[in-house]
């Protein structure tokens, strides 16, 4: 019977475990998922470990070590459908802040003997290393969207996960705009939906957990931040958080940094 079920592998790279935990957090659906999928590799959940091939691979985390850069190729080779889950896997995660820094200096800061530690100078998303079949955004991912990915995989269709901005979710939910009404900087206009406009519903600005929405206008937004009195450095920090290395956020934070340099010279 279990041979008939599609096999699932869950793999972790540099990350906090939160996105794979989202699967265990599906308390009402977990036993049903276990009925439909054969869990072949999921270290956090089971001591039962099988090799590939895997019909569905969920990959959490970014690539930060030479060994992991090899391992992801192996996971890819063994997996028919590979889904990256979360901001580390899709954008390099918060640990991608090293990409703007001197990584050996970082290592010296944390470790007395940095020579014991093997790490790459950059934290990069999975798609920078291997082909990815689907990316699920978020820091952390939304567990309902994870179930949608699993259900659509079982049904043989593309997952239905919208790509509009958090800003639109606020309008839909009737949440008063924190930026217009209260001058709180908010990344909602440029951030991918998935959380349901969580932060504005808790009286704070969106901080971009789900990364860039489709076709975001970053320049327009950061101009507005400046008009509202947010400093250039604070704007750069705002863009350089959990999706700092996502292309659109990265381009804008680099543009802002370069703008300063060009005006100084």
């Amino acid at each position, binding site marked *: 019977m279990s041979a008939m079920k599609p096999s699932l592998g869950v793999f972790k790279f540099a990350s906090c475990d939160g996105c794979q*935990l989202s699967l*265990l957090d599906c308390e009402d659906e977990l036993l049903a998922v276990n009925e439909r999928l054969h869990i072949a590799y999921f270290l956090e959940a089971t001591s039962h470990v099988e090799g590939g091939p895997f019909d569905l691979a969920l990959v959490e985390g970014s690539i930060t070590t030479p060994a992991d850069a090899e391992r992801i190729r192996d996971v890819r080779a063994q997996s028919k459908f590979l889904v990256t889950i979360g901001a580390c896997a899709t954008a390099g995660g918060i640990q991608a802040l090293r990409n703007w820094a001197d990584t050996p200096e970082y290592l010296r800061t944390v470790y007395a003997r940095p020579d014991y530690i093997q790490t790459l100078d950059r934290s990069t998303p999975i798609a920078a290393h291997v082909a990815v079949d689907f990316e699920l955004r978020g820091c952390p991912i939304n567990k309902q969207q994870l179930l949608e990915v699993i259900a659509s995989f079982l049904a043989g269709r593309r997952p239905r996960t919208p790509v509009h901005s958090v800003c639109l979710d606020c309008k839909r939910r009737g949440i008063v705009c924190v930026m217009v009404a209260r001058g709180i900087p908010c990344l909602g206009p440029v951030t991918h939906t998935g959380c349901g406009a969580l932060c504005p519903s808790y009286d*704070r600005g969106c*901080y971009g957990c789900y990364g860039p929405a489709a076709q975001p206008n970053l320049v327009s937004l950061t101009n507005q931040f400046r008009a509202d009195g947010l400093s250039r450095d604070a704007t750069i*920090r705002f863009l350089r958080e959990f999706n700092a290395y996502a292309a659109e956020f990265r381009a804008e934070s680099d543009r802002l940094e370069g703008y300063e340099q060009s005006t100084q010279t």
Partner: protein
Amino acid sequence: MTDDSKPPNARTIRVEALCRVEGEGGLHVRLKGDRIEDVQLTIFEPPRLFEAFLRGRAIEDVPDIVARICGICPVAYQMSAVHAIESGVGVQVSPEIRRLRRLLYCGEWIESHTLHMHLLHAPDFLGFESGLAMARDWPEEVKRGLRLKKHGNQLLEVLGGRAIHPVNVCIGGFYRAPRREELTALIPDFEWGLQAAIDTVRWVAGFDFPAFERPYTMVALVHHEEYAMNEGRIVDNRGQAIDVADYERHYQERQVPHSTALQSVRMVDGSSYFLGPLARVNLSLDRLKPAARRLADELGIAWPSHNSFHGIVARGLEVVHAYEEALEILKTYQPPTPPHVAYQHRAGTGCAATEAPRGLLYHRYNFGDDGLLTEAKIVPPTSQNQGQIEEDLRHWLPRVLDCDEDAMGESCAHLVRNYDPCISCSTHALRLTIER
């Protein structure tokens, strides 16, 4: 698995990856005949370098950023961070905000403890490879456990916005206080959960516990009038009690070649120490809420217990305590106004320790009058327990030397899981390799 290049009485056993722990690592054991030459808890979780990139960040960013150290216990990181920064900028929160923080922590203890008990640890005692496999023979217990876990997550969702990486914690309190009806709606579930948690403790207390008493130095926060979560003095069972501000003068991190996590020792003699639910129950038994306190006496365990296998029972008692405390707060809740206390930036240093599900979590931050960090120090519970785990294994291995290598590996992994190690945290892990 035999290596021909080694003398015949030496052998290597490998369990490549330790399962049912958070994060990744392994265990390396070198044996010569029946002599244990070396035991290493090897953590191969890639380092993420939080303490380095936190420098230059605004203090307001810290609760969101440090949450990402661990998806299982983000609240612990947020709590240690806000308390540390508040002590540095001189913020005193209101009693209402303080209670709401305890409520948030109750949610995390319930969620994290019930996850570990049901899906990660109980399968060791009952001989299953996972909680999901265990559900075939123990369906009611697993379903009950998942329902309890869901309660913890629901509390985190209402109070924090979401269960993993809550968005509502800020310096001075909360961005928004939940409405009364958002919280009171949880009361019926929590009434059920309290009884279910008691039943769960009775169930796990009936497991077969190996007799494995060790002369541990147990360390936990102790508060003079409540079961310590966010505040207290750092106390051990040998009579030492220190202020959190003196932590770095008594406990020291050191680096070992086999691990990306730093290990901590007691500075007085370089010895290991034991953190977590068992240490807390031992040191604060009489501060447990009444139902948890009564239950502790019914279980046939003599407290204080120095058997790490009793960790699952201590975790269960804390779940009962968390339900009792959560219910008290839910029933009397009035939204604090304002939801967070205002403060001015000023240069300073602040430290704090709170009790993460796995044990004491220490943070220290130095920052300038621009509100930007100049230094961050984070000492997670698993790196503090790591030396103790290795020491336990040295004493445990002689009992299982006659087992075949798979059984030996599983037995060692069970012992490691007594500590509910969170390897994502500790790098700020587990591969079993046994060399004979």
